[in-house]
């Protein structure tokens, strides 16, 4: 049984779906960040796999940059989260309704 | 200066409008009149410089805007656009000179001057994008005029006017982009220049789709049945000057665009859509005339009469022969003069009584004899009496379409009957009989300011009815070029049959020169 690109892509998709479920399910902002990390990682697997099976480094490059972006996102995101927490004492999504249209 | 006269014509009013902000509001009127007069004389000078025997574009100017996509500031005029431009400057002058509005006159004049720029821009543009930009820009001042100076329902009317026409022109924009893309595929270069587009011969099924896209934009502007309902509201709510400009110039953009875009770009589609459009035109003519007959508001009568007359113009354009198209273009001028004058006249009455209901009047002829006379002359012109400006256009339009279809022309010809019915009955109700209302007994006859606007219109209406040659001849020459172009481009046998070949019969210009 040979591993193909599709195996990795399916795995990536499954992980992505788990991330999506997390994104929709979580109301705690910190947990929401976790879910987004899962999304990013799922995509990384896909890129790395494509890079491998296509014999092209571009995919890895993308994964690399995604990791960089994820890191900065965490830094800024957590900072904002802390500010918000200091302001309201809560990090519950349902209570962040200042963007009501 | 001569080679830049078109740019001067286009941008002078806009610059003057900018300057107008710093003019004191007491002298705004004088300023407006001066600017409009200079502009009008510039346009007359343009006519003087224009060579009537040349059929192509003249006074062309080009400046690159986005060269990568072939978008250029490209302007030029031929006999078709020349007179509509003169009409636009003429009406702006008359509109400002006989302005009776007292609220925020300065804003009004600035708006009008800005509107003048957009109008001239539309008729002079030879680049589709430039055309589109001016086309859409013209909505803004009109929206403002209706929305700021209009009647009680002005917001509804102006929003309807704007959204309706805007929707149509968006579809038109898609058509333009596709046309440019097609040009790119065919030649490997981007171009939005109309003159370049003219050289393309499109496959017939493409023509159909593009024609439909352009049609929607133009038809709403004209406005053709069943897209006409914004017009009565716009006219009903607009101040006098707004109605005048709207009826005299803005509606002509639609019909002008048919001649400039639809016919030469899509000759086969024009032939294929000829009869469906003729049906719409005939419905417009008869139906709008009937609706006009039922109106209780005198301004609405004139508004619906516009729709009816625009039907004749459309019919003439889709006659696809020189007689019909020339007649249509001439009728655009004629209808502009006449309906503009009629709206001015209705405004005179409105200024005095602040009502437009027919039932409020009666016997006005004995109180305001001069007014009744001028109204009578303009009404007869509207009805299409020979030796008035409208007859020439109407006759040629119908004559042209008769070649294509006898039955449609017969039905469309009822325009002269139904037109007489609603106009005469409205005239009778307003002017004839005895004065029944106390308020009407002491109405003042037209004053000097109003005469200043009306007399020139009367003169033009009769002059061009008796001697249309100076206008008709350049129009005719330009139209001949278009018809010949259409014939050369036609692919389907039906189209080749329907569009006359002027080169073959050798009739170009010969008719006049023989005499």
């Amino acid at each position, binding site marked *: *049984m040979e*591993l193909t*690109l*599709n195996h*990795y*892509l*399916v*795995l990536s*998709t*499954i*992980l*992505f*779906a*788990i991330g*999506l*479920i*997390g994104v*929709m*399910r*979580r*109301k*705690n902002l*910190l*947990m929401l960040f*976790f*879910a987004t*990390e*899962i999304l990013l*990682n799922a995509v*990384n697997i896909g890129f*790395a*796999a494509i890079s*491998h099976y*296509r*014999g*092209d*480094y*571009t995919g*890895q*490059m993308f994964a*690399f*940059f995604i*990791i*960089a*972006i*994820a*890191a*900065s996102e*965490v*830094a*800024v995101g*957590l*900072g*904002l*989260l*802390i*500010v918000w927490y*200091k302001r309201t004492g809560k*990090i*519950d999504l349902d209570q962040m309704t200042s963007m009501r249209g | 200066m001569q080679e830049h006269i078109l740019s001067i014509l286009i941008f002078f009013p806009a610059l003057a409008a900018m300057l107008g902000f710093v003019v004191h509001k007491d002298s705004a009127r004088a300023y407006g009149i001066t600017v409009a007069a200079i502009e009008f004389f510039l346009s007359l000078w343009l006519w003087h410089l224009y060579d009537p025997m040349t059929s192509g574009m003249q006074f062309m100017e080009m400046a690159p805007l986005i060269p990568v996509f072939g978008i250029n500031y490209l302007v030029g005029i031929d006999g078709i656009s020349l007179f509509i431009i003169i009409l636009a400057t003429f009406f702006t002058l008359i509109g400002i000179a006989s302005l009776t509005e007292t609220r925020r006159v300065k804003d009004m004049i600035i708006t009008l001057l800005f509107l003048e720029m957009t109008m001239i821009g539309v008729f002079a543009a030879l680049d589709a994008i430039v055309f589109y930009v001016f086309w859409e820009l013209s909505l803004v001042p009109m929206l403002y005029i209706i929305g700021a100076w209009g009647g009680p329902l002005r917001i509804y009317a102006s929003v309807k006017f704007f959204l309706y026409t805007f929707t149509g022109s968006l579809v038109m924009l898609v058509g333009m982009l596709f046309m440019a893309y097609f040009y790119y595929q065919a030649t490997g270069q981007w171009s939005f220049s109309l003159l370049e587009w003219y050289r393309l011969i499109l496959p017939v099924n493409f023509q159909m789709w593009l024609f439909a896209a352009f049609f929607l934009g133009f038809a709403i502007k004209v406005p053709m049945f069943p897209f006409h309902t914004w017009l009565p509201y716009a006219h009903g709510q607009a101040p006098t000057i707004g109605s005048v400009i709207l009826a005299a110039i803005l509606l002509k953009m639609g019909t002008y665009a048919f001649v400039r875009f639809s016919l030469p770009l899509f000759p086969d589609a024009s032939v294929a859509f000829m009869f469906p459009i003729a049906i719409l035109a005939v419905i417009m003519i008869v139906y709008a005339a009937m609706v006009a007959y039922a109106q209780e508001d005198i301004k609405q009568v004139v508004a619906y009469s516009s729709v009816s007359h625009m039907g004749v113009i459309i019919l003439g354009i889709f006659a696809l022969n020189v007689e019909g198209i020339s007649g249509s273009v001439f009728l655009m001028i004629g209808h502009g003069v006449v309906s503009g004058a009629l709206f001015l006249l209705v405004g005179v009455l409105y200024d005095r009584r602040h009502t437009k209901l027919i039932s409020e009047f009666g016997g006005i002829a004995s109180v305001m004899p001069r007014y009744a006379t001028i109204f009578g002359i303009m009404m007869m012109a509207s009805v299409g009496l020979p030796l008035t400006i409208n007859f020439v256009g109407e006759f040629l339009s119908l004559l042209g379409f008769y070649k294509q279809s006898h039955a449609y022309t017969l039905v469309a010809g009822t325009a002269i009957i139904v037109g007489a019915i609603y106009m005469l009955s409205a005239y009778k109700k307003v002017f004839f009989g005895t004065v029944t209302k106390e308020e009407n007994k002491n109405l003042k006859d037209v004053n000097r300011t109003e005469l200043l606007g009306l007399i020139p219109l009367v003169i033009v209406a009769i002059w061009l009815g008796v001697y249309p040659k100076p206008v008709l001849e350049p129009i005719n020459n330009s139209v001949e070029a278009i018809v010949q172009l259409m014939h050369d481009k036609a692919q389907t046998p039906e189209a080749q049959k329907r569009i006359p070949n002027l080169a073959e019969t050798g009739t170009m210009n010969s008719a006049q020169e023989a005499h």
Partner: protein
Amino acid sequence: MFEAVAFYLFATLTIIMFTITVMTSQALYALTAMAAGMIFISAFFFILGADFLGAIQIIVYTGAVMALYAFGMMFFDTTRTLVEKRSNPRLVVVLGGLAAVLVVLIVLAPIVTTNINAHYPIDPSVGNSQAIGMVLFTKYLVPFELAAVMLLVAMIAGIVLAGKKMDKSLTLMADEEIALMHASSTQNTEEGAH
């Protein structure tokens, strides 16, 4: 064969770990499960021969990011059970599943696998890290530098937002408070000058 076994093993583990991350109501569990999941993911990278990426994955995610989250959690005091109001949980699962199925469908469709040419073909004679370096510092130099700057900016932002004065925050204080604070600090410096 070895690869297949490893793939399935790690795939199962990753899915389990991430499911726990998403589903648990204990924040600490979630954090731990995610950290584990990240490490397992790096396993895939090693399987795929992207050694450098795997190393980065472990360092950045499991090291830096997880440490950050841990700090955050300590700050928020979320060791206790999370109380989250849920509405319509079935829809969430259905949507997630549907998205997955659709993406799989698209991935499996033949159209993706055609028309792709390698711009930077993998050269087996060179080591992975070396090769990455070659590509990264030639073609992707500018994005790389940008990423570096971005990281720097993010770091500064994180510090400014959450950092120095944990008890006071410029972003949260009313204008007059800031003015007051500002005034007192200038006063201090002036006193120092005397």
